């Protein structure tokens, strides 16, 4: 339960961190908030030769309006900071709603947005939020930078498109269209525990109150954030009636997600939970978009 011997570098600029990463390659691990990495070190499930700590770099944390009118978040911004930021509540209500469900305040005080996104735990909330909102990530290396869609970033269990010489430095969330409602709903045995099941829903209504766009993405439902695109597309063009929501929830949770059993829940129970949570999430997303129930 103690980390194996490791060396430690604390560069004071992104350029220095990228140079160190290029030098050490696979032997290095980036240390952001450490709330997932340090447990892995303690269990010796991860035994990197060198840790490159991003915490001393002062200019990797920000929350601001992006050029396109959405949100730009620096990768090292603490989760707690994002959770309490008024611009996030206004521009990214889904992120604002999901963050208090990420572990506990003691963890969010230290944990970073970029760290959770790059760690790619399929039970984590933030990757699901990023995929649902159509976020883009800026990945930087010593030789250049590139943008990648969150959807394309997640490859498998804790595996992403991030190359050994790259650091995730910025997250961009697009501006949501008018009459869009979001909801994030999860079920955990205790508040702050890993969720047994959870779903993010986003719906957009047109002038006639019909659904013009819908997205459903699940956590703890497969190796990556699991998007139920076919169920979501069933909703488009309809009025998000209780029956259509029930049908979409049924399709998503029987056909499109792939939960695995663990000591707390069987596959059948997880599918059941996901279905119930989907109905709740879609109903409140609809209400928040200005459909019938309001809010």
């Amino acid at each position: 339960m103690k980390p194996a011997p490791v060396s430690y570098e604390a560069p004071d600029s992104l350029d220095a961190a990228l140079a160190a990463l290029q030098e050490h390659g696979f032997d290095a691990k980036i240390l952001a908030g450490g709330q997932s990495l340090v447990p892995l070190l303690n269990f010796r499930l991860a035994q990197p030769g060198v840790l490159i700590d991003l915490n001393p770099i002062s200019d990797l944390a920000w929350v601001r309006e992006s050029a396109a009118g959405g949100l730009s978040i620096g990768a090292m911004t603490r989760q707690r900071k994002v959770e309490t930021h008024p611009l996030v509540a206004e521009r990214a209500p889904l992120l604002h709603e999901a963050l208090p469900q990420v572990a506990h305040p003691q963890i969010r005080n230290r944990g970073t947005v970029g760290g959770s996104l790059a760690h790619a735990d399929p039970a984590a909330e933030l990757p699901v939020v990023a995929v649902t909102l159509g976020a883009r990530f800026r990945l930087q290396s010593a030789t250049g930078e590139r943008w990648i869609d969150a959807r394309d970033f997640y490859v498998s269990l804790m595996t992403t498109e991030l190359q050994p010489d790259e650091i995730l430095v910025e997250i961009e969330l697009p501006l949501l269209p008018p009459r869009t409602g979001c909801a994030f709903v999860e079920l955990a045995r205790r508040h702050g525990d890993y969720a047994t099941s959870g779903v993010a829903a986003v719906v957009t209504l047109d002038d006639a109150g019909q659904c013009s766009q819908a997205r459903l993405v699940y956590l703890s439902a497969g190796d990556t954030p699991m998007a139920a695109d076919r169920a979501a597309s069933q909703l488009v063009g309809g009025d998000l009636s209780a029956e259509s929501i029930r049908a979409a929830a049924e399709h998503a949770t029987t056909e499109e997600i792939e939960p695995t059993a663990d000591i707390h829940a069987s596959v059948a129970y997880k599918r059941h939970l996901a279905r119930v949570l989907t109905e709740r999430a879609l109903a409140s997303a609809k209400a928040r978009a200005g459909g019938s129930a309001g809010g």
Partner: protein
Amino acid sequence: MTERQRVTLEVNGRSYEREVEPRLLLSDFLRHELDLTGTHVGCEHGVCGACTVLFDGEPIRACLMLAVQAEGHQLETVEGLTDDPEKLHPLQQAFWDAHGLQCGFCTAGILMTLLPFLKENPEPTEEEIRLALSGNLCRCTGYQHIVAAVKLAADYLREPAA
């Protein structure tokens, strides 16, 4: 290159300087290097909350940080709550009066979680108290007396020296 690195930090208002291996956890640093054994170590993966300390004023898990990362930072541990061994901090007094602990293993982490919580929420509801405690495991009390102690602590802190 895993050799020892110098770390200089402030704990409970006092400066310390040590040379440590980079792999040394902050929780072990407090206990073994500084002999501040009030910070307890339970699960060592961020679940139990026993090692909660204040890092630049905010509660964090000391087991999820390396000691070298605390370079230049300010920490507060349970030992910093009071400097008079005869007089408990109001938060501690409330736990004493309401019987908010049994074995005491989780108590230091709970106190360090509650200190900033009660500053931000001087009159918390029971629901808010339970949510604030959700990151700290207690295996003895069933939490009832802890919740009662937090309510009492809020009273004491609103009316000091009652």
